[in-house]
């Protein structure tokens, strides 16, 4: 038996012994996701047990170095852990922008002191991070951001406003883009800086969305004092860090539809439209839409697997995450259009116990942001056209 086969067997056995049955069920509400942080609460005993076991094994982030609380696994081993978790439907023990966004940027651009300070608190779920990128006048044109950071001795004084800051009202720290040189060309005067959301002068205001929920905030900075040592990478070269982080963010958003997927669409649709005598869905056009969707979904899963393998082999294009982001988000919107159609009028209830507080229509509406957040579909296509296909202009 090869080492990898042995590792797979051990992983399977360990997961079997340690993943509580409740943590193998599809997620049905927001409470099912554990985000960590200073004010973290577990929604169940099983959630706590699962998180702590995975944390102690280093598997909240299996592929990060052990010195930072990761599992120290190589690419093949980490893939096996993902596959074996997926095979039993195991939930992610910890959801975190620290893992999916900040961590990769710190590992590449951070000083050793910054890595030692922040990464172990991410893997242990102690600090919850948020992302200060977009501003009221800097959306798709992110590099035109205006939040200023002015020198005052060894500190920066930060003033300005961010928007669409996911869960800023629950976050402990923020990784933030600020303008440190207002005279330079727009991409050249930006710095990437970290600070505590409890700092004096930071305030947040949730934004009510069409889903009736408020996952995003406006975030205000009024003379916030941050030591210069909190800059990641070089002052005024923050755009490099920002872009690198965006690649990871886009890869994460691309995969959103794959997590906590729930019951197969064919079964969900059968609940409302029923089967004919041959066992086919009674609505043949809906059946065709579901099959076409599942073909694209399976193909995207293969592409995601291949993207990781290509990166490992040094054969991937850095802008490919934009391609995956585009496709994954458009596909996730399609999934929810089908779910709404399959649910019919049952999927329209907004508040009842029966509908779990309108879980499905609220999730449906939430997916509409997928193709906007982290770069719109149109921006993604522009990046692919210019950076991968090398088409001229603009």
């Amino acid at each position, binding site marked *: 038996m090869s080492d990898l086969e042995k590792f797979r067997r051990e992983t399977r056995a360990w997961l079997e012994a340690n993943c509580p049955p409740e943590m193998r069920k599809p997620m049905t509400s927001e409470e099912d996701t554990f985000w960590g942080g200073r004010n973290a609460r577990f929604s169940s005993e099983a959630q706590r047990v699962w998180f702590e076991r995975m944390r102690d094994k280093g598997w909240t982030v299996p592929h990060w170095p052990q010195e930072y609380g990761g599992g120290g696994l190589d690419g093949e081993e980490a893939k096996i852990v993902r596959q074996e978790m997926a095979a039993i439907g195991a939930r992610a023990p910890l959801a975190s922008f620290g893992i999916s966004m900040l961590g990769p940027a710190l590992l590449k651009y951070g000083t050793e002191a910054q890595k030692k300070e922040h990464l172990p608190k991410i893997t242990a779920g102690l600090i919850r991070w948020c992302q200060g990128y977009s501003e009221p006048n800097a959306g798709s044109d992110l590099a035109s951001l205006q939040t200023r950071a002015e020198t005052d001795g060894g500190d920066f004084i930060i003033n300005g406003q961010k928007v669409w800051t996911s869960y800023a009202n629950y976050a402990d720290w923020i990784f933030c883009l600020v303008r440190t040189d207002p005279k330079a060309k727009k991409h050249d005067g930006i710095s990437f800086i970290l600070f505590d959301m409890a700092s004096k002068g930071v305030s947040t205001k949730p934004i009510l969305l069409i889903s009736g929920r408020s996952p995003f905030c406006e975030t205000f900075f009024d003379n916030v004092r941050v030591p210069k040592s909190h800059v990641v990478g070089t002052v005024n070269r923050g755009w490099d860090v920002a872009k690198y982080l965006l690649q990871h963010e886009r890869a994460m958003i691309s995969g959103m539809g794959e997590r906590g997927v729930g019951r197969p669409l064919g079964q969900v649709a059968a609940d409302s439209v029923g089967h004919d005598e041959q066992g086919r869905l009674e609505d043949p056009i809906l059946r065709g839409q579901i099959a076409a969707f599942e073909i694209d979904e399976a193909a995207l899963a293969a592409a995601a697997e*291949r993207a990781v393998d290509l990166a490992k082999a040094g054969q991937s294009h850095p802008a490919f995450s934009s391609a995956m982001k585009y496709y994954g988000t458009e596909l996730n919107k399609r999934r929810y259009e089908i779910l709404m159609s399959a649910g019919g009028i049952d999927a329209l209830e907004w508040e009842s116990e029966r509908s779990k507080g309108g879980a499905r229509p609220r999730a449906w509406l939430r997916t509409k942001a997928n193709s906007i957040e982290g770069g719109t579909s149109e921006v993604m296509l522009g990046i692919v056209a210019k950076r991968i296909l090398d088409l001229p202009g603009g």
Partner: protein
Amino acid sequence: MALILTEEQSMLRDSARGLISDKAPVSHLRQLRDSKDATGFSRELWKAFAEMGFTGLLVPEDFGGSALGCVEAGVVMEEIGRTLMPSPFLSTAIVAASALSRGGSTAQKSQHLPKISDGSLLAAFAVDEGAKHRPLQTGLQAKRSGNGFKLNGAKAFVVDGHTADLLIVAARSAGGPGERDGLTLFLVDPKAKGVATERTAMVDSHNAARINFDNVEVNADHVLGEVDQGYHLLEGVLNIGRGAVASEMVGLSEEVFGRTVNYLKERKQFGKAIGEFQALQHRAAQLYIEIEITRAAVLKALQTLDANVDGAGAAVAVAKARAGSTATLAVQEGVQMHGGMGMTDQFDIGFFMKRARVCQELFGDANFHADQLARMKNY
């Protein structure tokens, strides 16, 4: 297993690409078409395929082959797709070789496989009867007669049927159309009494035939696999063929796309390259993404086939459906973005459009495979 080609597979791709792009660019197909060539492909190139070891890729080593897998066969098919080279590679080296090595007796294997491997035997697989691919609906009759069977019926869209030295024929030996039980595969000599072959000129200038069977006598030695239980073998072989055609469509799509993107950079209107227009940039980017995702799905299917043919049904359905839709999109965008030039026969792009349409039908189109997937998942 990583979802990328290994070093050996990349080397195979390079050598296939070298030979095919050198000896059989699209002008090769054009020349065969314009001269109404009676064979429809180059026997000389088939010899070259044999010398390179391509004809025996899937043949077990005991019978003169190299016992490689569907991924390797797909690598060659993809290169064929780039230049639209007409070749018995699919019908003989992939489908027939798989049918014989998976279902054949030792005597059948010894008789035919070494000849496939050395390039001296051409074979064709006769399944379709109606306008659409419906293997379960097979109705060509196999009636018991003495020690053997008598075949009556007709097959259509028999790829390379006009030059075959050996036919593999799906027939109904029991039950009725739609039933899994009662299918039998037969090895039939195309020169046998009662076999009438009509070469059918197709839209893509590739090779196919309609074949009539009028009281064709075959003895028990010519049954491939088990009598009445041929569906399992048939389905496995078809899935291997589907993976191969999907690979051809990936190569075809990528070639059309490459030519189209080059045209977007060269063609000037309104004083600038048309590739500067966002309307075209976004469509080009969408097509690129479709192709990359399809490429991954196809490689996944080929690897799954190599791991276990019987467990590959869903992955193959996904791959063939995706490849069909992607190739259809690629050739449509290709013609549209080439403007009037794309409509001319002088320009190659139309050849790709025609071949894509045929590949879409071959072994089941995207709708067929979507339906298959829904059945596998019980909805």
